[in-house]
């Protein structure tokens, strides 16, 4: 099984196979001695050629989030089939390309700066979401026109709740 892993700007080639019943992983043409042990629901101990890593792994929408030392690594893994599909220019139908702006954290809407029909530029303030005693400005991710405003000042919203829908913004 061959994977192409993407972490940050780097693409890393991975080969995973079984040898004498033991899993073997080749990474960048080297096959390190690996030992992964699950410690709890969220955390793992990984020994790579004896180097000890205490990490947590959880699946995300399009890959895996790995907490290791002081960083969170966003790892995408694509197998041969994924790569062929991508090379053919086909897109994953499930991925989100809509103009929906959602609440990044739960909180309280304290003000709404736009109305339906307004034209907004990328970076322009749409509304203010207050959480943890702080006002967070929610800005338009791309330029477009406001199609729907889902919230009013005073509304409490959950994480991921739709706030505003923009139209006319490709590839958001």
């Amino acid at each position, binding site marked *: 099984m061959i994977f192409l892993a993407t972490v940050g700007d780097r693409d890393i080639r991975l080969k995973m196979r079984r040898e004498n019943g033991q899993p073997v992983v080749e990474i960048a043409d080297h096959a390190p001695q690996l030992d992964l042990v699950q410690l709890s629901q969220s955390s793992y101990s990984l020994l790579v050629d004896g180097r000890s890593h205490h990490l947590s792994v959880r699946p995300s929408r399009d890959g895996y989030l790995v907490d290791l030392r002081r960083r969170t690594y966003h790892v995408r893994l694509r197998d041969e089939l994924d790569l062929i599909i991508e090379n053919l220019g086909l897109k994953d139908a499930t991925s989100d390309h809509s103009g929906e702006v959602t609440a990044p*954290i739960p909180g309280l809407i304290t003000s709404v700066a736009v109305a339906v029909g307004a034209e907004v530029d990328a970076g322009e303030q749409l509304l203010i979401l207050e959480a943890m005693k702080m006002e967070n400005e929610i800005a338009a991710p791309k330029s477009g026109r406001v199609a729907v405003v889902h919230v009013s000042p005073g509304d409490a919203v959950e994480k991921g709740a739709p706030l505003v829908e923009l139209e006319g913004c490709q590839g958001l």
Partner: protein
Amino acid sequence: MIKKLLIANRGEIAVRVIRSCRELDIPAVAVYSEADRSAPHVLMADEAICIGPPPSVESYLNVTNILEAARSTGADAIHPGYGFLSENAGFARSVLNTGLTWIGPGPETLEQMGDKVAARRLALEVGAPVVPGSIEPVTDLAAAEKTATEVGYPVLIKAAGGGGGKGMRVVTVADELPTAFERARSEAASAFADDRVYVEKVLGQPHHVEIQIFADSHGRVVSLGERECSIQRRYQKIIEETPSPFIAPEVREQLSALSVKIAAACHYLSAGTVEFLVDGDQNYYFLEMNTRLQVEHPITELVTGLDLVAEQLRVASGESLSFDQDDIQPRGYALECRIYAEDGFESFAPSTGNVLELSAPSGMGVRLDHGIRQGLEITPYYDPILGKLCAWGRTRPEAVRRMVRALEELRIIGVRTTVPFCMAVMNHPAFMEGNYCTSFISDYLPELVSWSEEETNHLGEAAVLGAALFAAARRPTTSDRTDSRSAKSDWVRLGRERQVSQ
């Protein structure tokens, strides 16, 4: 002595106060909002009373419910912690009028020092310089322009009625003044219901240095030394240390002496902090007085060996301070990193979620004060502070290295925190040399958030391997699909199962 103490707060500071209660054998009553039923301060207290729904105004700021909780549990004293009602003179007065003991300075002191203009006037009277600017609030643009021209640009427009960065504007050139003046006034009005502002000179390479003082009801006022709090983001402290690596010994002595004078002049009682700005040439200026226990008090405890909360409870009962000025012989160096539920690498965006894992650092010279537990939901209702990690060392480099070690050990999984950002600060050469002022974070932000060689290469590969092995166990590869159960145990072993089988 106090018979039963109600703590009108939550989170790490409520836990902190409960600890001193336990050590003094004083039963502790926790109050909690409906969002905090299973928070550590509730679990640790002897008694716990619900005081309302999650929003602070309906619970932790709900004076009626808090006083009723004290009545129903028979508490005879109230500790307000910091934030919430801690500097609210009206609340302090209600507590005293109900016949309870108030842990903190009297309402008159709270009123006087809570008014920035009055506080500056008092400081000038005892001989403490204040930042050049308007002594009285400015009410019209012309007066603001006059002051700004006198002290010279850049100037700062600041709200008289409160802090936290609200109603605050830096003005670099005269043209910007009119707009900034109006916006600061309107922000101040909506934030503090008080549109008074004043105009101050912006100092070069400013340091935020504060003096911890302590006063009892028998007229004794003692300085416990300074804390350097110049590592700030959005005018909020994130890392503090004592002693300051910057100020000269004679400045330290002068600041201590002035702080004691200020505390005496406002008839101070209990723990308080006098804040100063010190510029690059060691000129110092009184800023304000914080009339409560400060978030960063543990670093003073680490070098002095004193329990400031226990001392607050003693002096509130009318006892004398258990120490005098000669007993204050600070030992070593102490640092504090504040653990906020914020992603320091993403403009300090707040983060909520469930604490899936919590593993506390410990060992030599490490102290962690926190108010969370594994399984706790971090909600968006309150201040994002989760805890404070402190490290002590014989020397400053030892304390810094120890802090790095402790930050590496601290595992909080499930919520983003400022732990990684604090590590970046600790490892930055300017911080290691003790050479920094309040612009540190903005000056060095790109370096602080950048990825190291090791992080991108070696650790990046480890992360990929972790993800791949995890994925292989969950999504069996073609050859594994026949028996996905055994596949899992091949790629990932369960630590626990493994040991049982041996």
